[in-house]
């Protein structure tokens, strides 16, 4: 299967591991990630205002490239996926926004691309059962807490990845890899996000609630898809390690390089 891939700014810099293990895992699962040419940063957060046009053009250009190739547009960073999917939804549902965006781009685009997070690609296109068949080194006995944060799930009317309050997609992947998913109360609450820049104390309070909740529930490790979540949880003293879900995936598939 060949898909268009939007890595995003942080996957080329501070979150190279998220990118690396996504690519390695994809190879094992017969997915070809064709990186979008000349992609530009998504901006990190979706601006909900309907009259914000320029800030959404980089997403529209990536979407348009994928649509031209008739490929699914896949991201693995929670933020990129959220921004791109919400932008695509606005192109489909808001005529005024669509009209104004189309004044700025070379070829008309009307939301034709299909947008998926790498997790959804594994669940819906590859199938977690097929992923399980490729496991070489089971995560058996490992208690793993999935941290969804905000951006994978909300707003659910647009994201449509999973039940926004009781998600299972990451837990189902953990189970497919042989691990033991740990359900804990704060798995879909905010880590503080970009407030870390101006008000680190606020990010600390948010993040500690998440990591304390996971640790108290017996987790040995937390997995996330978001570089900023990982930063906030780690920076604020998580008792247990925080890794990208793709790192556990690559480990289970037997393609994780030992450092």
């Amino acid at each position, binding site marked *: 299967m060949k898909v268009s891939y939007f890595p995003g700014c942080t996957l080329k810099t501070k979150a190279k591991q998220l990118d690396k293990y996504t690519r390695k895992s994809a190879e094992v699962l017969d997915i070809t990630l064709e990186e979008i040419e000349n992609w530009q940063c998504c*901006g990190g957060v979706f601006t*909900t205002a309907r009259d914000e046009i320029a800030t959404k053009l980089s997403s529209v250009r990536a979407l348009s490239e994928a649509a031209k190739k008739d490929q699914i547009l896949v991201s693995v960073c929670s933020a990129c996926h959220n921004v791109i999917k919400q932008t695509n939804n606005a192109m489909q549902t808001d005529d005024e926004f669509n009209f104004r965006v189309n004044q700025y781009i070379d070829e008309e685009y009307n939301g034709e691309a299909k947008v998926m997070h790498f997790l959804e690609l594994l669940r819906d296109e590859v199938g977690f059962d097929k992923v399980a068949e490729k496991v070489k080194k089971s995560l058996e006995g490992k208690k793993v807490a999935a941290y969804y944060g905000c951006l994978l799930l909300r707003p659910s009317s647009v994201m449509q990845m999973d039940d926004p309050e009781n998600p299972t997609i990451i837990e189902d992947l953990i189970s497919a890899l042989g691990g033991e998913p740990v359900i804990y109360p704060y798995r879909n609450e905010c880590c503080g996000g970009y407030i870390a820049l101006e008000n680190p104390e606020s990010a600390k309070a948010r993040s500690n609630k998440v990591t304390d909740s996971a640790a108290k529930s017996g987790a040995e490790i937390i997995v996330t898809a978001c*570089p*900023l979540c990982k930063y906030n949880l780690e920076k604020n003293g998580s008792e247990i390690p925080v890794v990208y879900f793709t790192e556990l995936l690559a480990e289970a598939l037997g393609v994780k390089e030992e450092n």
Partner: protein
Amino acid sequence: MNNSTENLQKEIIRSSGVNPKKCMRCGKCSATCPAYDEMEYHPHQFVYMVENGDIQPLLESKSLFQCLTCFACIERCPRGVEPAKLVEAVRLAVIRKQGANHLKADDIPALLDEDMPQQAIVSALRKYSK
């Protein structure tokens, strides 16, 4: 409400796409807001203050820069009011003015540490500056 306040109210409602009249004052948005403690005006107050044209205090409030864009209030509002979209529209009404950026590029190096991901910087700039 004077003329300029009325125009600003219309602009905020148009840009956000929110209809504050749908609010039934249950307070669930503020109850679920992770930035509640940091805010002077809370999400439910944004809704009724915009509805009543009481916008000036919001324009001057630090609450505008405490919203985390976590979409919790948007997701959990039983009436689909989507308060965060109003917070965003009021914030834009402030930072779109010349020289009113909340975060300036020159301020950023002093706020960084070596582990901070680029995502934090681009997100903050998008929310705090034009």
